[in-house]
Each structure stands twice: as C-alpha cells, then as structure tokens.
C-alpha cells in the first residue's frame, strides 16, 4: 500500500465517510474513551508539561545532530554483525529488501506493524517476486486479508471496521465458521499466524526507536507479534524512517513512556522489546542475519526547513485521537496512510501539494493536536505554513479568495477605508436580511448559509454608539 490511498478526490472521500455512521461512531467512541484514559495516565505520571518539554528537547537535539547519531547507529549495528543500508528513496529501500528476499529464496515473509513499509509500498514488491507476505499485527492482518483495505489510523489501522465486518472477512477469506466474539476472532487469527511464524524465511519489522549508542532497535506492541517476527525467522529486516532514532537508552525510556501514554493511554504496552543485531552464540533464538534499512524518502529535504518539527513525530496518534475533524471524516478521507493532523502536515511534504492540497485546510485550527502532542510539534502552526505556501509559492488559492484577501489588506490597513467599508455593510446586505438575519447569503456567505443563519450587520456600529455616547448623546 503506497502512502497515497487511491479513493477519489477529497470531497468524494469526505462525502462517503460522512455517510458512514458506523465508522463515525467507532471513531467518536475511541476518541472519547481515549481522552479519559490518556488524561488518567498523564495525571498519574505528574508534571506532564515538563515531560513534554523534555521529550521535545530530546527530539530536537537528535534532529539537530541527526548525521552524528545515524553514523553512530550504523557503526554500532555493524559492530554487532548487522548490515545497514541507507535508502535515499522508496525504490532504493524496496530494491535492497527485494535483493535479500531473492538471495534467501524466501517464500514466506512475516511482518510486524510498520508505517514506513506502507509508505514505501514494500509488500507488492515482495509479492511480485513470488513471496507470500503476511502482516501479523491483528489490525493490519484484517486489512490485508480484506483485499488490502487501507489503514484509517496510524496506531489502530482497522478502527473503521466492527467485529461483525471482521467476522465476515474471516468467513470469506479464511473459512472461519465461528461467531463475531472478539476473543474467538483473535484466537482464530492467532492459530493462523502461529503457523506462519514457524515457517517464515524472513521477518520484517518497523522501528519505534533505534538507539544510537548500542545499535539496538525498540519495538512497542500490545500483541507480542513483533517478538515472534524477530525471534523465529532466520533473517530479520528492520525498516525505519531516518528520524526514528534516540542517542541512548535513557532517552528511549522517556520517549517510550510518552508514546504508550499518548497512543493508547497505557503506562506501558504489553511488550516493549529491544533487539541488538543478529543472534549471538548461545542465544536461544533470534535471526542469524540482521539488516537495518534506514529510509530517507523525502525526510532530509524537510530537515533545516520551517517544517523540521514534524520530524519530531513519534507516531503516537495523540493528535489524531483528539482531532474534531478526523472524528467526523475518519482516516480514509485524508487519502494518505498518514491521517489526522500529523497526516495533514506530513502528507503534502512527502507526497506533494498536487495530491494533498486540501489537507492543510481540513482543520479548524483548534489546536487540540498541538496541545496533545507529547513532543510539542506545533501542528496547527505548520498547517498555517502549508496554507501560506499554497497561497504564495504554489499559487493554488482560489481567485475569489485572493481578491477577498486583497480587499482585506486594503480595508484593515487603512482606518478610513475600514470605517467607510463597514458603514456600507448594512445597506449592502439589506436585501438579504429578513427578521434580523440572513438565511440565504450572497457570494462567500452562501457556503455559510447552507447550514447556518448569518447575523445582519447592526444598523449602528459599535463605534458609532461609542462616539455618540462620548459626545453625550444617546447612551443606551
């Protein structure tokens, strides 16, 4: 699955999702439960704002010294007998991984959850050389067997499906015969997956945090699937975005704690695994061969720009979980595997404005995202920066808007023009006013009055009232 989801133009996607009552109920329920749970674990930890500042500082420091830490990481991976590959593009990453699969004559590949492998569209590349690729994260597994339904949430990819829908998918694709009870469904998936772990030639994982000082990688899951993916197959390939790195174990511990609290409202997830290189002599399990693929794919061109803070992201989805726009339109409306506020900032940077020009506007700038972000990415400010680029550099703003903003500049920069313009407002609107309100507005007001009344301009402006009052006339 590439970063872009091919599901039509923005308003078609939004329209379909606004009509999807089940999805909207599921998202709202997740957000409301998550809100309470997250506040609970934040309060329990205490000093949340100080933790956020520390986490931000760690991420900023790492990004400012990214070349140093990436070098340190790759040296330490090599020292432990692992192989490191720096991939400038998605193609380079996919080629490298495909070569390994060919070399190992791999038939079956198990994967744990990884957004970056979705971003680079790895699975079809491996399938094209005859490999069977199996997602082992339960959510990803469900989507994969449902004809590659795209993820709608970066942490809970199958959030948009309910248990009955999942049961139907299992029946259709796996010959499942039991009920929609989540325990039975999960048991069935587990039985299927266990066989795959045991017979897979290669295990592919993502990476929550690589640790530069030791050349280790950290995997955070609630299902333990990443542990099996890394323990059983002979070859392990870990794919990471080039920014997903911390200097030492100390910083990893801070960020994991922020991640699990922010993502799922848990103090810790069930499994937090740190792995270093291939298996040593005497180790009971682990791969014989370990490859770390470090993916740039557009990230280095974000470094050093005003958008650099977006690289602080630890993919916790706290912003998604509080976003009121995501709440109503769901993940698929964004047309990218990265949805919600982080998706609205990141997708145009990685995928360009042609495909994602609406996303920076799909926000009321309520700043719930910025407030929730555990590493203090100023998400709503970055959305404004995107809008600025769309207006100034891309020239993609509508002509009527440009004209309105020109008028705004003239009117607000000159007090006399402002006074003159506002004086005319009641007269200009008079023919649209009925009972002190406008029900069907002209021009830009039309969109407003599709669903709302617009107030009629006051006959007497506040400033007129104030001036009269100062003069001693007519206080009301």
């Amino acid at each position: 699955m590439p970063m872009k989801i091919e599901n039509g133009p923005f308003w078609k996607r939004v329209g379909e999702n606004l009509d999807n009552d089940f999805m909207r109920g599921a998202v709202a329920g997740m957000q409301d439960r998550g809100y309470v749970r997250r506040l609970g674990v934040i309060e329990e930890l205490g000093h949340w704002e100080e933790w956020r500042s520390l986490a931000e500082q760690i991420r900023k420091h790492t990004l400012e010294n990214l070349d140093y830490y990436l070098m340190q990481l790759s040296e330490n991976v090599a020292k432990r007998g692992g192989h490191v590959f720096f991939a400038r593009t998605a193609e380079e990453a996919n080629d490298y991984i495909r070569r390994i699969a060919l070399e190992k004559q791999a038939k079956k590949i198990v994967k744990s959850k990884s957004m970056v492998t979705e971003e680079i569209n790895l699975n079809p590349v491996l399938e094209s050389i005859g490999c069977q690729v199996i997602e082992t994260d339960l959510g990803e597994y469900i989507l994969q067997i449902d004809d590659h339904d795209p993820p709608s949430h970066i942490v809970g990819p199958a959030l948009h499906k309910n248990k009955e829908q999942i049961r139907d998918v299992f029946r259709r694709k796996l010959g499942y015969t039991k009920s929609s009870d989540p325990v039975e469904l999960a048991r069935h998936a587990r039985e299927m997956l266990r066989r795959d772990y045991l017979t897979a030639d290669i295990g592919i994982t993502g990476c929550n945090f690589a640790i530069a000082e030791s050349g280790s990688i950290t995997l955070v899951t609630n299902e333990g699937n990443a542990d099996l993916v890394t323990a059983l197959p002979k070859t392990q390939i870990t794919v990471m975005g080039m920014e997903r790195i911390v200097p030492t174990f100390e910083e990893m511990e801070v960020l994991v704690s922020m991640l699990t609290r922010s993502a799922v409202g848990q103090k810790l997830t069930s499994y937090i695994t740190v792995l270093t290189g291939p298996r040593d002599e005497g180790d009971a399990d682990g791969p014989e061969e370990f490859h770390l693929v470090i993916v740039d794919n557009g990230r280095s061109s974000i470094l050093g720009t005003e958008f650099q803070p977006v690289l602080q992201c630890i993919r916790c989805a706290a912003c998604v979980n509080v976003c009121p726009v995501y709440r109503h339109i769901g993940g698929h409306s964004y047309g990218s595997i990265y949805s919600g506020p982080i998706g609205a900032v990141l997708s145009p940077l990685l995928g360009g404005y042609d495909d994602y020009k609406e996303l920076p506007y799909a926000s009321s700038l309520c700043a719930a995202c910025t407030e929730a972000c555990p590493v203090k990415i100023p998400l709503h400010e970055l959305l404004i920066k995107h809008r600025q680029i769309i207006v100034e550099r891309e020239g993609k703003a509508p002509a009527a808007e440009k004209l309105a903003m020109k008028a705004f500049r003239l009117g607000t920069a000159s007090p006399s023009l402002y006074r003159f313009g506002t004086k005319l407002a009641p007269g200009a609107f008079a023919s649209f006013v009925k009972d002190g309100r406008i029900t069907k507005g002209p021009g830009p007001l039309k969109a407003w009055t599709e669903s709302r009344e617009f107030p009629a301009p006051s006959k007497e402006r506040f400033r007129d009232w104030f001036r009269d009052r100062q003069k001693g006339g007519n206080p009301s």
Partner: protein
Amino acid sequence: MKVSLFVTCLIDLFYTNAGKATVELLERLGCEVDFPEAQTCCGQPAYNSGYVKEAKEAMKQMMRAFADADYIVAPSGSCAAMLKEYPHIFQGDPEWEDKANRLAAKTYELTQFLVDVLKVEDVGASLHGRATYHTSCHMTRLLGVKDAPFRLLEHVKGLELVPLPNAHQCCGFGGTFSVKMGPISEQMVDEKIEHIEEVEADYLIGADCGCLMNIGGRIGRLGKPIRVMHIAEVLNARN
C-alpha cells in the same frame, strides 16, 4: 485605570450589544474606557488562511492604533490570542518587533483582565436560568485562559451553571474553515448543539463571537430554543 478597548470587527459590525456590555461592565468596575478609532481587525482571517503579507498590514495598523494604550482589553479570546502572536510573527523585523512585543505584553482578554488585573470575581451580575459555557479553543489553548470565565460566572446570581459534555471539542467555526469545509463544520457544530441540548441549557454562554456566530447561526437555523449570549452581556446583566 485607563483601558483601551479592542472591540473586534465581529462586535463592531454585528454583535454591538456585546461591545456595549463590555464598556458598561468595565466602567462599573471603575475603568476609564477608551476606544481607539483607528483600530481595524487583528489580521487573523488573512493570517490563518496563509495570507501573511496581507495580515501583517492589518497587524501594523493595530500596533499604530494601540501604541499609546496602557491596557488593551478584547472581548474575544481568539482575537486577543492573535495579538499575543505578533511578537512571533514580527520576530527579527527591525521596525516592528519591539512594537509587537509591547502590544502583546499589554493585551488581555476581557475575563482574564477582570480576574487577573482587576482582581474581581463577583461583578454583581444576575441572570436567571440554566446555562452552559462553551470554552473556545483559542482562548483556552492558545491564550491559556481557562478558569477566569468560570470564576466570574459562578458569582452570577440566579444562574445555574452546568458543565458542557465534551467541552474541549471545537464547535467547528475555525474562521474560513466554516465555509471552506462547510459540510465538516456543520457536523462539528451539530455535535456541539447536541451536547448543549443534553444538559437542557436555556443559555449558551461564550467569550468569542466567532464561535457564538457559528453555534448561534446553527441554533437559529434548527429553530432550537437556546439563547446565545456573550459573557460580557451575562456579566453586565442585572435582572
């Protein structure tokens, strides 16, 4: 104490009663209220739409208009938050940076000014009925004013204040968002109104006319019997 009122364009043009109430309230509390006539708009509609150059012209006009003010008080959390952003926007601008810093330092949202500067919580208001308060996003998240409105409203005689479920959620206004993304905005405001109805409030009170125009406009369209009031009108009420 001399207070310079930044009344905001929405109040100047549409919600004049909220402006009048602000003046009367401040005067009753002993302030001398001044209205610098050269004020226009804080620049937010252009700034948030990505028209930074256009916005900056409005911002410069605001800095000129309020150059002599001791305190700038705005009956809007969002517009006050925009003024507080000027230092960030004019950072490194040799001509305007200092002026932006000075403007931001003396800017207050109305309830913030009452509670933090005038140190008043009971303004002697009375209004009878059941009310709920909409915490607007920019006021709470960007300006950081969270408690002041509640402290003031708790002292209003006759007013039964009930918490609004999911209060932290945006009403769907978002300036140009409300028209650019109309169908999404509509869903957001409908959810807000469901919550207001859930607590059976007679009054919906807010401190930002943008949000109130949005919620009130939808309430009007749906014909719901909920009265929308700016907090200045509530605090100035004596009935």
